[in-house]
C-alpha cells in the first residue's frame, strides 16, 4: 500500500544535491541500517558510468548518485542481485523514476525481489544521450550539473524520451528526494519508507505544496509536448508501408532488445532459428517474386517486441541510446506503449499492486474496442 506523506523531511545540504545525497547514504552506513548501497559510479576512463553494489564505506565516496547518463537501466542491475529471490544483504538503491518503474514491472514478473531492498528515487532532470556524452564527457558533465543546479526540467540536451516524460518525479518508490528552491527533502511513499525515516529520527515537517505545484506545472508542459511529438511519430508508423519504411534502416543488431530492461528473456525468440525461414522457402519466394529482400525478419522483430513488451514499457529510452543507426525506437515504443497501456487502463511501473493486464479480467474492459465492434456492427446493419 502506498502511503504518500503530506510533508517531507528536510535534508542537510551544504553544497550541491550530489554531495547532500551522498552524505545521506554515508549516514545510512554509519547507522548500520543497510548492508549495501546500489549507486552509479564513473568508470575509470571517465566517459561512462556503471552500477555498483557498495559494501565498503570508503568506496562510497567515489560514487556519483545522480548520473548524467543511463548506460544500463538500474532495474536490470538490481535483477542481477535478486533474480534468485531475496539475498542476504539489506540493500538501498537509488534510481531514476523510469528505473523504478522498470523495477516494479520486473518485480511483478518475478525477476526482481524487493523484500530486502529499499528504493530511493529523485526528481529527474533527464539523461543526456549516450553518444553525446561519450563524445565529450566534460561538456556533458558541465551541462548536467547546470541542469541540476537550475533544476531545469525542460532542457534541450536530454534524450528525446526525457523531453516528453511526465513521470519524472515521485514514483512507486519507498522514499523520494524532492528538489525545490535549492532545498532537498525526503518524501516517504511506503510503510518501509516511513519506518526508515523514524529510524533516522528525521521529522517530516516541510510543506510540500510548492514543490508539488511546480512539478504539476512541469508535467502539464511535458504532456503537451508529448502529444505533439506523438502526432509526428504517428505519421511515421501508421500503416504497414510507413512502418516498414521507418524500420528499413534497421541492421538487425538487436541492441534495442539487449539494452531493454523489460526484455528479461533468457534467450530472445528472434535470435533463434525458429524465427528464420527455411532457405528453400526464401529461394522459392525469390523465384516467385523476382527478388526477395534479406534478412526477412526486421518488421517481425520490432512488432514482435512491441507485442511482447509495450504493456510494460517504461519509456526509459535505452533502446534509442543503443541504436547505431538512429531509428527513433524509444519514441515509437513510447507511442505504442501509451496506447496499449491505455487500452488496458494500465500504467507500467505505477504500482507493484496493479496486476499485469492479462492476469485479470475486468467486466467492462476494452470499452473502446467494444465500441468499435458495436459501431462496425451497426454499420453492417445499415448496410444490409
Amino acid at each position: 500500500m502506498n502511503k504518500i506523506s503530506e510533508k517531507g523531511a528536510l535534508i542537510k545540504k551544504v553544497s550541491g544535491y550530489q554531495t547532500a545525497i551522498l552524505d545521506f547514504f554515508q549516514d545510512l552506513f554509519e547507522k548500520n541500517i543497510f548492508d549495501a548501497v546500489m549507486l552509479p559510479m564513473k568508470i575509470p576512463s571517465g566517459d561512462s558510468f556503471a552500477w555498483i553494489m557498495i559494501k565498503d564505506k570508503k568506496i562510497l565516496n567515489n560514487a556519483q548518485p545522480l548520473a548524467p547518463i543511463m548506460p544500463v537501466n538500474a532495474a536490470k542491475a538490481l535483477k542481477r542481485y535478486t533474480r534468485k529471490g531475496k539475498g542476504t544483504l539489506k540493500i538501498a538503491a537509488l534510481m531514476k523514476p523510469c528505473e523504478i518503474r522498470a523495477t516494479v514491472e520486473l518485480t511483478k514478473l518475478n525477476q526482481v525481489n524487493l523484500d530486502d531492498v529499499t528504493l530511493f528515487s529523485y526528481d529527474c532532470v533527464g539523461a543526456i544521450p549516450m553518444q553525446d556524452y561519450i563524445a565529450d564527457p566534460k561538456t556533458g558533465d558541465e551541462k548536467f550539473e547546470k541542469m541540476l543546479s537550475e533544476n531545469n526540467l525542460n532542457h534541450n540536451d536530454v534524450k528525446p524520451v526525457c523531453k516528453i516524460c511526465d513521470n519524472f518525479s515521485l514514483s512507486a518508490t519507498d522514499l523520494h528526494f524532492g528538489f525545490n528552491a535549492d532545498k532537498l527533502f525526503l518524501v516517504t511513499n511506503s510503510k518501509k519508507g516511513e519506518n526508515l525515516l523514524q529510524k533516522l529520527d528525521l521529522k517530516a515537517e516541510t510543506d510540500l505544496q510548492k514543490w508539488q505545484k511546480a512539478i504539476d506545472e512541469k508535467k502539464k508542459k511535458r504532456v503537451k509536448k508529448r502529444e505533439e511529438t506523438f502526432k509526428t511519430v504517428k505519421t511515421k508508423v501508421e500503416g504497414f508501408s510507413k512502418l516498414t519504411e521507418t524500420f528499413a534502416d534497421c541492421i538487425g543488431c538487436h541492441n534495442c532488445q539487449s539494452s531493454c530492461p523489460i526484455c528479461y528473456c533468457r534467450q530472445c525468440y528472434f535470435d533463434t532459428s525458429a524465427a528464420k525461414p527455411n532457405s528453400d522457402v526464401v529461394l522459392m519466394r525469390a523465384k516467385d517474386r523476382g527478388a526477395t529482400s534479406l534478412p526477412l525478419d526486421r518488421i517481425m522483430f520490432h512488432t514482435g517486441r512491441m507485442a511482447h513488451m509495450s504493456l510494460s514499457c517504461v519509456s526509459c529510452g535505452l533502446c534509442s541510446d543503443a541504436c547505431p543507426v538512429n531509428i527513433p525506437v524509444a519514441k515509437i515504443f513510447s507511442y505504442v506503449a501509451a496506447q496499449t497501456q491505455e487500452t488496458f487502463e494500465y500504467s507500467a511501473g505505477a504500482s507493484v499492486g496493479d496486476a499485469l493486464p492479462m492476469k485479470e479480467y475486468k467486466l467492462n474492459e476494452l470499452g473502446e474496442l467494444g465500441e468499435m465492434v458495436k459501431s462496425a456492427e451497426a454499420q453492417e446493419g445499415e448496410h444490409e
Partner: protein
Amino acid sequence: MGLKSRTVMVIGAGIAGIQASLDLAEMGLDVHLVEETPTIGGRMPQLDKTFPTNDCSMCILAPKMSECARHDNITIHINSQIDSVIGNPGDFTAKIIEKAKYVDPEKCVSCGLCEEKCPVKIDDEFDEGLRTRGAISRYFLQSIPAEYTIDEENCLYLTKGVCQLCEKVCPADAINYEDEDKKIELNVGAVIVSTGIDPFDPIGFGHFGYHKFENVVTSLDFERMLSASGPMGGHVVRASDKKEPKSIAFIQCVGSRDESIDHNYCSSACCMFAIKEATIAKEHIKDLSPSIFYMDIRAFGKDFDKYYEKAKDTYNVDFVKSKVSEITEENNGDLKLRYVLENGDVKFKTFDMVVLSIGLQPRKNVPKLADKLDIKLNEYGFIRSDKFNPLQTTRKGIYVCGTANEPKDIPESVISSSGAVAEALKYLRLDRQELEEKKNAVPQIDETGDRPRVGTFVCHCGINIAGVVDVKNVAEESAKLPNVEHSEDLMYACSQDCMNTIKKRIKEHNLNRVVVAACTPRTHEPLFRETISEAGLNPYLFEMANIRDQCSWAHMDEPEKATEKSKDLVNMGVAKARNITSLDRLPIEINPKSLVIGAGLAGMTTALSIAESGHEVFLIEKENELGGNMRKIFYNFGNDPQVKLQDMIKKISDNELIHLYKNTEISEISGYIGNFKTKIIDKDTNKDKFLEHGAVIVATGANEHKTKEYCYGESDRIITQVEFEKMLHEGAFPKQKLKNVVMIQCVGSREKERMYCSRVCCTKSIKNALTLKEKFPNVNIYVAYRDIRTYGFREKYYTQLRDKGAMFINYDVDNKPDVKIVDEFDPDSKVNVTVFDPIMDKEVEVEADLLVLAAAIDAPEENNDLAKMLKISLNTDGMFLEAHVKLRPVDFATEGIFVAGLAHHPKDMDETIAQSKAAASRAMTFLNKKAILAEGTIAEINTARCTGCGYCEEVCAYKAIEVDPEEEVAVINDALCKGCGACVASCRCGALDLRGFSNEQLFAAFDSLEMTDILINN
C-alpha cells in the same frame, strides 16, 4: 435383470434433447433424436442474447448442434413424429413417421438457389413472420441438417401440380417430388421426452391489441428484431413508420400467472427475458427509455439480481409495479397504456412500442403425444412428474426433461437433460468403452522427414464465394506456391463427392498436407480433418483459409481485392501447412471410481445414481449423520421429505458400491481427470487415508444465514423459517394462542453483501404459512415481501395462501419493516412490527406472537479451501462457479469435476435432485471409458527460454501450467491443457508454443505475405 438395449429415443431436439443425446452418445449408447421441425436446435437459435452473461445464443449453441450432427452414435430424424411406443422399459418398440422432405439430403448442397427462385412466399416461422420464406427452404441459416426441405402444404407442384422451378435450378439434382413418408421402427431401452414449450399466443388478449396495432410485438418477435442475424440486422424500428422507437413498454405476465386462462403458473423466464431485451435495446438505441410493467420481478437465478440491479442503475430501465389493463393506439401509431398502481391509482402513459412478455405454455400437440406415449399430463397440461422424481413420467422407462414438464430457464433445462440420462441408464446396458477406435480406421501415413507435398482445394460454395472471388484464379495461383503439388477448385468442398475427390487426390499426388480455402474452421475443420484421416493422413496435417467470411462476405463490393486477399490467405495457409506436423493425442487412463463430497440430498442422490450404474463411489460427509439441510425439512406440499431421506439413507447403506466416510474431512486433492488422489482424515481418530478416483462431485451444500437484523436472537418469538418449520413439526408453539404471525422475506438476500435471491424462501414461507393455517385456521398471517418469487408451478401455493386471507405487504429495501420487542424485560414479550403498506398507503403496525424471518442462503466459508484444492473457482458470492452458466451448469472449467445442489446456487429439492442426477450423468460420460484422449493441439514449453516468471500460470483457466519452483521453469500438464493458447500469448519469452499453432508456423504464414517484403513492396 439382464439389460440388453443400448439404444435410447430422445423426442424433441431443442437444447434439452441435444444435451441428453450428447451425454448418452458419449457413454457409448446409440441415440435416435426425433424432431418434428426440419432442424435441431429448438428455441435457442431464435434468441439474440442470453441472460445474465449476454452471450450470443447461437454462438454458444452452434458447437453443440454440430457435435450432435457429427456424433457417430446419434441418428437425427427431422420432420418426424411419434406413432407409437409399446413394450416395457428396457425393451420398447417405437414407431416413428419421418415425413417426406422432397429433397435428397445426400445430394443437396444447400446453395439456396431453389428458395431464391421459389414463387411461394410464406411468413417465416423462425423469424416470427418478420420476413418470408419459400415453400422450399432451410429453417435458418445455421440449421442442422443444412439441407433444404419442401413444405408440402405450400409447394405449388405438390398441391397444384405446377411450377417445378426448384427442380430446374437445382445444380445438384437433389429435388425429388416422389419422396414419401417413411415409417421407422426402433427398438429402444428408454425414452426421453424433451418437447419443450410453445410461446403463449396473445392474439386472444384483445385489450393488448396484438396483430391489431402494428407496434405491439411479442418478446419473441422483439428477440428476432434485436438479433444481428435477424431480419432487421439488429436495427430495431417499429412497423408503422420504420422509425427507431425512443420509448418501449414491456408488459409482464402475458399468459402467465393468469387464472382466467388456466395459466395459474409462472413462466419463470420472462422477467429476465424482458430485462435482457430492455438493456440490449438500450445498447442499440442510446436515448431509449425502456419501462417494464410488472407484478413481481422474478430474478431468482444465479447472478440474476445483479443483472436486474444493473438494468435499474446503469441502463435506467424504469420498473413500474402495476397491472396494465388496456392499450389503445393513437393516430401516429404510438400506444397509450392504461395501468393501475398498487394503491389503486389509474395512470396513462404513451409509448412508441409495446413488447408483450409472453409466457410459456405446453406445446399444442402434447396431449396427442402423451396419448401415444401413454403418459399423463398435469393440471396445466405439462407432462406430469413429481417432486422427488422430477424427471420421471407416469410410465416407467419414459423420462422428461427441459421445459416439457415445467417452464424453466436454459441451465435448468440442460441440468434436467443430463439428469434424465442418468435415469434412463436404469434400463440400458452400459459397457465400459475401449479407447475410441474410428470405424474402418485407415492406417496412418508417417510424414516425418518427407518434403511437404501440399494440396490446395479452393471452394466455390456455389455462388457464396465464387460470386465475388475469382476462385479459379486463386486455385491457379496457389499451384505456383512452394511445395504445392496439386491445386484445384471445387463446387462444394464439403459435399460428399468433393470429399471423395480430396481423398483421391491425396493418394494420386502422394500429398502429405491439405489446405482447403472455403468457409470457417469453426464449423468445417472437424469434417475435413476426418476426411484426410480417412485417406491415411494425420488429421492435424490440415489447414483452412477462410475466404468466405473474410473475402467474399467482407468485401462483396470489391471482387478484385477480395480475390487478391483470397490469394494472400491461401498463401499464408500453405506457408503454415509447410510447417505443420502430425500431432498425437495422448491417452489418459480413467479410474472409474468417483468421489462425492457432502452427503446431503445432492451428494446422496449423485452417489446412488452413479452406484446404480455400476461404478464405485466414495461418499464423504463431514458430519456424523447423513442428510445435511434435508434433515430440517419436514413438509413439502404433500410429499414427506423425511420419508424420502430415510429411504435414501437405507439405499446407501445397502449399496455395496458406495463407500461411506462419515465424520471425515478432506485435506488434500491432487491429480486431474481420471486420476485424482484425495487424502481424507477421520475426525475422531485423526487417521488419514488416500483414495484414488477418476471424478469429483462437489455437493457441499450451503448454510442458513445468521442474521443480526430484526432483533433476531433477542427473543424466542423471533425465529427463522427453518426454525419455524421445526416448530410446526414438533408442535412446540408459544403457550398462548397464536393470533398474529408476521413473516419478513429477503432477510440478508438481495442486498449489498448478498446481491442474489435465495430462491427458495418465498415458497418456503408460503409453505410454512399454509401448514400453520391448517393447524390454526384463525391465525392472521402477514408477509412483508419485496417480490414474491414463486416461480413455475409454485405460484399455485401463493394463490392458495392469499385465498386463505394472508396479508401480503410489499416493502422497499430502503424502508424495511421496523421490529421492536414490546417489553424488553419480559422474555416472553410479543413483538411489534411496523411496515409501510403501499396498498393502504400508510404504516401498518402488528403485534406479533411470532416473527418469522426468511433468512438468506449463505455459501460456507470452507468453499474457499475446497476451491483451492480442486483448482476451481468461486463467484463473488462464494458459490462454486460452473464452466458456463447457461450450457455447462454442472461442469467446471477443470475437467472431471462437477457440482450439484446448493453448492452451485440456492435451489429447491426437485432442482437439486435433477442436478445431482445430472452430475452423475456428466461423470458417467467419461467414467464409462477406459481411457480418453487428450487434445492434440496443446501447449508445449521450451525450458531453455523459460524464465519462470509465472505469467502463464496466472492466465491459465484450466490450471494446466505451473512453475516448478526448483527448476524455475513452467511445466505443462498435457492432460489438463485445452489448447486455448492463453499462456502462449502471455509468454514474452516465446518459450511457450501451441502445437499446431506454433510461433514458427504463424511467422511462416505472416512472412509469406509479399507486403512484409520491404524492398519488393515499396
